[in-house]
């Protein structure tokens, strides 16, 4: 059984890509950057301590699941969501939905997606895929990061849906019950942009938004004290590159994706100023890409003396300055929209 009408596409980011594909399947044509922007997905957070992770990390988008919740709050799109305690129940329910022709998005541990080369796979409980069929013991998977429909054995999917640890999926799945005929973009775009501005320069704790970027630049200088040796430090520094470029960010730490949203918003609202802001956000993304490259290079070469970390911190602080200026300007632009 395969849901033939489902169209597989690659996407920049798994969560927005999955959502976009499911909405298109339901008949609502909407682009991935628009989903990302309308869900106020852009973010920054520096997390000194995270459950089950013994090293600081930073995030560049809102918490997994929040994008969909925001979209749900802001539009008349109706989602059906469920978590499970029983693996058997989760599998039986999934089979039943597929048999009815309903594609189902599942939260999974990325590591078990064995159609992806092993060297690219890491344990991350925040990956989203869409199950679009089942043949024998294999499910047919639409994965935003894979060029065509893939297959996964049912045992592997179980492991992926019920992996333990930080942000454990607990069998979480959702599908779309109904979509509106149209989305009121003119009303929602300013609301969503204001939300992002508030996340980045509103009153936030020091580890969130632009303040969080500055905290990251500062705390980074102490990373050598948190690491066992130069290999460990190198690994953590190179993860900056991974978070900015490889973790479904679309590159530039989601900034390119948000820039595309602003360009699409400018077209919908016929607002030239938003188009200019889109270009500025692209340049901000380029700056993050430079950081990504610099971190990867000094990490790979084990060139991790204090002066290099200071240079990296300086580059990150420059991003904070650029983003603060950007959101202040964006606030003026969006406040003018009637």
């Amino acid at each position, binding site marked *: 059984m395969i849901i033939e009408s489902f169209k597989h596409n*690659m*996407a*920049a980011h798994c969560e927005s890509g999955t959502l976009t594909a499911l909405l298109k399947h339901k008949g609502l044509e909407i682009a991935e950057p628009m989903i990302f922007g309308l869900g106020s997905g852009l973010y920054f957070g520096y997390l000194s301590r995270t459950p089950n992770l013994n090293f600081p990390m930073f995030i560049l988008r809102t918490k997994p699941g929040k994008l969909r919740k925001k979209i749900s709050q802001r539009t008349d799109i109706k989602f059906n969501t469920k978590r499970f305690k029983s693996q058997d129940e989760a599998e039986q329910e999934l089979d039943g939905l597929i048999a009815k022709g309903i594609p189902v998005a599942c939260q999974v541990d990325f590591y078990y997606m064995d159609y992806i080369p092993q060297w690219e796979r890491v344990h991350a409980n925040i990956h989203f895929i869409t199950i679009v069929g089942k043949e024998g013991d294999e499910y047919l998977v639409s994965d*935003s*990061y894979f*060029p065509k429909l893939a297959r996964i054995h049912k045992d592997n999917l179980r492991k992926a849906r019920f992996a333990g640890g930080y942000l454990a999926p607990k069998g979480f799945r959702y599908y779309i019950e109904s979509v509106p005929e149209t989305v009121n973009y003119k009303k929602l775009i300013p609301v969503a942009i204001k939300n992002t501005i508030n996340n980045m320069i509103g009153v936030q704790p020091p580890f969130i938004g632009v303040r969080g970027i500055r905290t990251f630049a500062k705390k980074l200088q102490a990373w050598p004290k948190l690491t066992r040796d130069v290999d460990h430090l190198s690994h953590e520094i190179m993860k900056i*590159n991974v978070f900015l*470029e*490889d973790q*479904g*960010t*679309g*590159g*530039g730490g989601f900034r*390119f*994706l948000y*820039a*595309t949203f602003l360009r699409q918003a400018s077209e919908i609202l016929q607002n030239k100023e938003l188009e200019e802001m889109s270009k500025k956000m*692209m340049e901000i*993304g*380029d700056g993050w*890409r*430079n950081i*990504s*490259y610099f971190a*990867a*290079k000094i990490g*790979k070469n084990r060139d991790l003396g204090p002066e290099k970390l200071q240079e990296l911190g300086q580059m990150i602080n420059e991003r904070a300055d650029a983003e603060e200026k950007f959101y202040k300007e964006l606030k003026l632009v969006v406040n003018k929209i009637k």
Partner: protein
Amino acid sequence: MGDNIGTDLKAEIKKMIVETLNMQDITPEDIEDDLPLFGGENTLGLDSIDAIELVMAVQRDFKVRIDDQNLAREVLKDVNSIAAFIQSKAE
């Protein structure tokens, strides 16, 4: 792919690769149009850091942005695919 794309563009791309990645033992002429850039044997053997360097070099030298990592994987397969991408953006 790439049959209709000018050899000059491909030569420029090969030069960009060699110069950007500071390759000591390889000349632009050594790189076949369809030689895979990444992977194991019978490839140019580039890694993920080389990839981001090439993404930035393509933007710098050819004024086209590769703003999506999935797109980067497709574009940076070989010289032919880079040339096709640059040409598609120019059209």
